[in-house]
């Protein structure tokens, strides 16, 4: 793995009374595709700007390969940035934009030309060398910005919501290309985004941020399947989240089988958890919509760890590869349920508006999120 590791230690940054970053510590490993994910105003861009050198923290340190980089100006850091709005130089051609960092270093012309062409080839812009940025599409502009940021051979590439100005389809393609680039070059990528699906699909690890704090750091799988807080559960993907109280907690095959009282659902449910919980403890219960099964007929009960509810489909949303149903339970609580259409012949949107349905899920598929007192 090339690239450097980045260590952010106890960094805080306030603008007046607004705390953009509140005692943030993150360790980013060498060669990692690391995402900073959070809603707008959560501090992710501030953290990126501090690493790039456009902003400095009130307290804390930022180490690049073990060395403190905070005293260095942006042009002396082995870090390059891809900006959200491309930030291409409007008066220079594509070639000259990419050559800009090399010209500053006074690299001989022949070497410079070869290198610029190599990097333009890397981002598939061979045919647009002489165009001005104003003649390019959004996706092409962002490719130029990426080539320009990479040509300095930085140890860390910072990407500040690089795809947010592009349309959905292009975003998907460029995201895959970015991932390929990362595999090819092997340097550390720090990717700032508010789009959880972007972060989930390409990151090695994700830091979920909200209100200036890092809430959870983990692989996409960990973040999705075992969110640390109710905010993470709600922000990553879709979920059904309910406040709950622990009724009982008993050991069950290396885990604990917990019975929860959930006023919103009108009865108690079963869920497994790795850690023992105290009776009477207040927690949040979350179940992902795709883990809930929806059937027209009452399913045969297999085992006692199945939670079963009866309801009415209030809103079926068919989107080709899946259907999403808003199911209203007997006490008017609405559950989101997603059914995948994996197979043409035996699946399909056979559940309709106002149908009576049964929704069920296994105790293992639910998840208990600790309530953090704020």
């Amino acid at each position, binding site marked *: 793995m090339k690239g450097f590791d980045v260590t952010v230690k106890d960094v805080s940054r306030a603008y007046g009374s607004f705390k953009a970053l509140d005692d943030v510590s993150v360790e980013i490993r060498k060669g990692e595709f690391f995402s900073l994910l959070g809603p707008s105003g959560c501090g992710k861009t501030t953290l990126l700007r501090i690493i790039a050198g456009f902003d400095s923290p009130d307290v804390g340190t930022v180490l690049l390969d073990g060395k403190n980089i905070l005293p260095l100006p*942006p042009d002396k850091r082995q870090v390059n940035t891809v900006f959200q*709005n491309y930030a291409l*130089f409007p*008066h220079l051609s594509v070639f000259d934009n990419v050559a800009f960092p090399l010209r500053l270093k006074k690299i001989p012309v022949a070497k410079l030309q070869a290198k610029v062409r190599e990097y333009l080839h890397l981002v598939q812009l061979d045919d647009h060398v002489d165009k001005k940025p104003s003649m390019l599409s959004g996706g092409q502009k962002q490719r130029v910005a990426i080539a320009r940021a990479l040509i300095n051979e930085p140890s860390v590439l910072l990407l500040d919501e690089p795809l947010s100005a592009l349309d959905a389809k292009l975003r998907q393609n460029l995201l895959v290309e970015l991932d390929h680039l990362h595999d090819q070059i092997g340097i550390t990528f720090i990717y700032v985004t508010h789009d959880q699906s972007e972060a989930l699909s390409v990151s090695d690890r994700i830091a979920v941020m909200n209100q200036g704090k890092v809430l959870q750091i983990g692989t996409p799988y960990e973040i999705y399947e075992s969110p640390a807080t109710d905010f993470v559960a709600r922000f990553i993907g879709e979920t059904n989240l309910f406040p709950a109280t622990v009724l009982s907690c008993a050991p069950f095959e290396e885990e604990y089988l917990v019975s929860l009282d959930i006023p919103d659902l009108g009865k108690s449910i079963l869920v497994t958890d790795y850690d023992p919980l105290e009776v009477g403890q207040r927690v949040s219960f979350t179940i992902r919509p795709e883990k809930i099964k929806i059937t027209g007929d009452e399913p045969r009960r297999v085992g006692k760890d199945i939670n079963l509810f009866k309801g009415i489909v209030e809103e079926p949303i068919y989107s080709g590869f899946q259907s999403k149903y808003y199911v209203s339970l007997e006490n008017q609580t609405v559950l989101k349920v997603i059914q995948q259409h994996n197979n043409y012949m035996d699946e399909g949107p056979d559940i*309709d508006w106002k149908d009576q349905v049964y929704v069920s899920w296994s105790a293992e598929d639910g998840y208990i999120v600790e309530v953090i007192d704020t």
Partner: protein
Amino acid sequence: MDSNKKTAPPKQNGKKRLVPTQLVSPPTGPQGPYKLPKNQHFSDHRRFGFSNIMLVLVIVFLFAPLIVVIFYSFNESKGMRWTGVSLKWYVQLFMESEALWKAFTNSFIIAISSSIVATVLGSLASIGIKWYKFKSRTYIQIASFLPMVLPEVIIGISMLIFFTAVKIPLGMFTIFVAHTTFNIPFVFLLVSARLDEFDFSIIEAARDLGATERQTLFKVVIPSIMPAIVSSMLMSVTMSLEDFVITFFVSGPGSTTLPLYVYSMIRYGVSPVINSLSLVLILGIMILALSLKRFLKTIAASS
């Protein structure tokens, strides 16, 4: 449950394969390029419609005096009576008007020098005020517009008082200083307008890519606001060339500019030499403007 809801397709042994919906048949008949419908709201097709009449009136109002001047520059006699075609006023203009050409040279020197200095100072001022954040920013911005809104007479008198107070002899130098002073606000305004739509993240991008602050200024900021800098300089040149009031106060012996000279000529009776000078100036400025327009267009296209 609704009975008609789940009748077809039968569910027991898998569903029936869906038949693709029949497409609408493509239109037949002659196909030509699609034409936009004519905009009926805003175009006035009548030959003598209101807008056409207004257009002609405005053009006549603007250009009739110029045409009269050009017409009389070819008149043989001195008065307003047409006596015959002659080029004698042109001969007099080019052969026997040394003082006029001296004034013209003065104007030219002052216009070029003051506009260059004003462009440099005004551009740097607006870049500095946009780039750095400091306390007295807004005050400087307001103060810089003062020379633009104050009546020229007041500026002229105040400059005259100032120059005599600090004992600077009136002449070319004082005119140059005065013209630079009233040109700076215009440069500042034009360049600031360009900087307002300037994407400041490209400054960060330049710094990020390894440029120092100075390199960023000269390789990124100034080149990308070049159209505004060039056009503000052109405006300074024309304003300096045509200024009469302020120049009138701060000029001294031997520093007569063209507007001052023309004015003094008129005081001793209108000479048709002025008419011929007008045509020469009109032609010169037209050629300049057309070539600069082309130049500005290429700059604008490149950014």
